[in-house]
């Protein structure tokens, strides 16, 4: 909508006349492969995780096409089991966990802090290469015969099935280190490299969210690493820790796994919350409602999330006391999450709402996350969860969170910072259309899954009783619509790089520091080191004619 932004770029400089930026200041393979610049590393992540997302999406498409018929339309059961496992493993470990911190986090966090780079640039590059190694190992595992354990690797099945489980375990181990290093780096950067004047409560909420995420990454991921190592040892040396035939306890694995993987849910979702906090504020041109409460709720979530893992195991025969505690805390963690959602909605209220594509993705997030979060409350109730556990209801719930919320927030962030990252703007009309298609496709895919799930359809089924067929077919139609939307999005984003329609310096009128940096930013980000004198999200200093904030 042209009315949302000034008609001319007041900064006036033609693209060619712009000074050298981080993309074009040097060229050649090694200038990228060996770069220490957080923005280049972030861009490589962006390309990498996008490819992982498209692979994971392709597997999802195959899964859904297969389920068109009750007896399965395309594959043998064994093949189907491998494909759904690949979908889960690629999406969780290679896409969702690293996506936002690795790409947008890397690029934007130092800019938002007014820093020249992250605190530990070499470690940052190492994180990227570990991620790449993990992704290659995971692909290798497919070539080595595939793995069919589901992304959860539950023992003892994962101990008896195809040996490629060790390879994918190794991949997960390496990816874990990538995640830990990114977390460490962000923690140090946030503590050490804030611009003068940027107190903790002047940090943008994206930074807060990444900070909370980093704490979780550093504290929780080692448990995953140890767990997959134990599985590998059990397979190779039969040490008897998880294998009941050797006196081990398979349920112990579940505890270890979820001790990481529940916090991992927040490793995945907190950065998304951060993006949404930014975007809601900028595109409503209004300070975030309840800033401190949102910041603290991120930390509260990070802490409580360590204490709720047992809610994935309500049917495993836990003691009454464990059930009591885990269910109680699960409901408890709903509160800080609800506070966030309410605060975002309150921020939109009486704002100046720009209906551009980043905001449309944000609004889509707010609706979808409401469903994802609320259905999580249904699952927290003990006896209801016993019925719904391991059904499509759960599948739909976590897709509303993982795909509907996190991936949509990622898309929103990519659209929002695209002009800053590349200095070009994509076709807004196509972007709005794609957002609409994705929203419709997504809901068409997963609403039927809620219904068949509450009616008892178990998950991870290659075939199913025919009474569920209409829901499965609706869901398959939905995923096709979704795929069209995503294909369109990839198209116009990539096309914008070739059309080179110049973006404005401060495309959306943001007041956080990244918008003070030149577009695209030069190697060390700012021409002069910024000094912060205002409260965060203070739009009163923004000159609405020029979209400039006074330079200090």
């Amino acid at each position, binding site marked *: 909508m042209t009315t949302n932004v000034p008609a001319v770029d007041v900064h006036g400089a033609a693209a060619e006349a712009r000074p050298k930026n981080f993309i074009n200041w040097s060229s050649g393979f090694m200038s990228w492969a060996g770069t220490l610049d957080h923005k280049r590393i972030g861009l490589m992540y962006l390309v990498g995780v996008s490819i992982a997302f498209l692979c994971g999406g392709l597997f999802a498409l195959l899964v859904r096409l297969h389920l068109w018929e009750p007896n399965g339309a395309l594959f043998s059961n064994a093949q189907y089991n491998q494909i759904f496992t690949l979908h889960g493993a690629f999406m969780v470990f290679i896409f969702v966990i690293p996506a936002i911190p690795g790409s947008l986090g890397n690029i934007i966090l130092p800019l938002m802090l007014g820093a020249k780079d992250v605190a530990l640039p070499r470690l940052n590059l190492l994180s990227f290469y570990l991620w790449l190694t993990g992704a290659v190992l995971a692909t290798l595992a497919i070539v080595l015969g595939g793995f069919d354990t589901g992304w959860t690797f539950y023992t003892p099945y994962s101990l008896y099935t195809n040996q490629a489980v060790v390879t994918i375990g190794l991949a997960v181990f390496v990816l874990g280190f990538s995640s830990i290093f990114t977390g460490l780096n962000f923690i140090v950067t946030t503590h050490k490299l804030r611009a003068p004047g940027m107190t903790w409560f002047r940090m943008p909420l994206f930074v807060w969210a990444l900070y909370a995420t980093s704490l979780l990454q550093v504290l929780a991921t080692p448990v995953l690493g140890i767990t997959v190592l134990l599985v590998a040892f059990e397979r190779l040396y039969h040490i008897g820790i998880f294998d009941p035939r050797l006196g081990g306890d398979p349920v112990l694995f579940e505890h270890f796994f979820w001790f990481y993987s529940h916090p991992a849910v927040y490793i995945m979702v907190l950065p998304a919350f951060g993006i949404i906090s930014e975007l809601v504020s900028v595109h409503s041109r209004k300070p975030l409602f309840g800033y401190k409460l949102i910041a603290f709720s991120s930390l509260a979530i990070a802490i409580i999330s360590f204490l709720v893992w047992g809610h994935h195991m309500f049917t495993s*025969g836990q003691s009454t006391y464990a059930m009591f505690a885990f269910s109680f805390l699960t409901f408890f963690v709903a509160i800080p999450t609800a506070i966030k959602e309410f605060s975002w909605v309150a921020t939109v209220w009486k704002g100046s709402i720009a209906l551009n594509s980043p905001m449309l993705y944000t609004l889509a997030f707010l609706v979808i996350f409401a469903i994802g979060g609320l259905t999580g409350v249904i699952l927290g109730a003990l006896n209801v969860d016993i019925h719904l556990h391991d059904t499509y209801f759960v599948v739909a719930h976590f897709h509303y969170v993982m795909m509907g919320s996190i991936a949509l927030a990622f898309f929103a962030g990519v659209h929002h910072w695209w002009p800053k990252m590349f200095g070009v703007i994509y076709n807004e009309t196509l972007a709005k259309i794609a957002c609409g298609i994705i929203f419709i496709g997504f809901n068409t895919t997963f609403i039927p899954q809620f219904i068949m799930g509450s009616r008892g359809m178990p998950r991870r089924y290659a075939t199913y009783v025919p009474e569920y067929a209409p829901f499965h077919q609706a869901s398959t139609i939905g995923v096709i619509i979704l795929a069209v939307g995503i294909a369109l999005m990839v198209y116009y984003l990539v096309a914008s790089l070739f059309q080179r329609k110049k973006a404005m310096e401060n495309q959306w009128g943001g007041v956080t520091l990244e918008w003070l940096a030149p577009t695209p930013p030069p190697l060390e980000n700012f021409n002069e080191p910024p000094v912060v004198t205002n409260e965060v999200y203070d739009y009163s200093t923004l000159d609405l004619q020029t979209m400039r904030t006074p330079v200090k």
Partner: protein
Amino acid sequence: MFAHLIQDPKNYVENPARPPEVDAYGQLTKLASTFSDVDGLFYFTYAVCVFFFVIITGVLLYSVVVYRRKTFDQPALSNVTHNTPLEVVWTVIPLIIVMVMFAWGFRGSLDMMTVPADARWYKASAKQWNWTFNYPNSAAQSFGELWLEKDKNAAFVLESSDVLHAFYMPEMRVKRDVIPGRNQTIWFNPTKLGEFHLFCAEYCGNDHSKMYAKVHVVTAEEYATKPWDKWDDANPAKGGEAVYKALCSSCHSVNGTPLVGPSWKGLFVKDASGALVGAQREVLVNGAKQTITVDQAYITESIKSPDAKKSVGFEKNNMTAFPALEDKKILGVIEYMKTLAEGK
């Protein structure tokens, strides 16, 4: 790519249970046990969710329509960043609501965990990928089918001899993981006559989705006739076919196509005179090749200790042993195998 569709003999479409009826709100199947708390709490939380969802989307939609930016330099109408009463309200009210849900759900789950003293104890044994049931006061087992008496508390000991499975009956609202090396229990009181689904809800490998049993809830009179112990001595092949469908069809076909194990077609053949004889088979005994003739002893051994003689061509695949399969059922299976013979 589509060949397995033809190979695969076990197929829900042939053999579905009664499609379940849906309850008045259309979200759940009609409850068939006494655990009505599950439905009550489900719809309560559901209503709460709908309520909050309507508020959230309502406010969003209203804002988008009313506060839409019309000129690029339009500032926000308000710059409030706090409203303590409002924030307290939206923290405290949800907190109270979720605590109600918590207490209600916990109470309900206590009922589910406490097995009534008068329950009849059954045993459900799970193995890749079928269910076997033992009944109180009856030596007979049933495979892939279970009979229960209406309005009688039924409790189960759950056993797995390989990997994790889960005992899930959606219409009874019960689920419990079946864990090798641990004895789990589950109970419910079936309140409706009819046929119900028993699914495996924990991923357990290739045929996880086919690890299915049909549960019959019958009247006291019918239950007294021990329907699981019916065996038509006049027609053993028919009983054998039932055993095949329940236990063997995930690995053996009857049309000549090899699956995990060799097809049963051709185990018996007709000779020139039209008489049924056992076929010649190559097997490995401790790694050494032998040729044997298929007979009752060989088949019984194949079922009870399958690794004693491994069929050549399938030596890498493992068959689950069925040491407890009763003799009459083995004979029934053999009779059924004989009906597959071709020839004059």
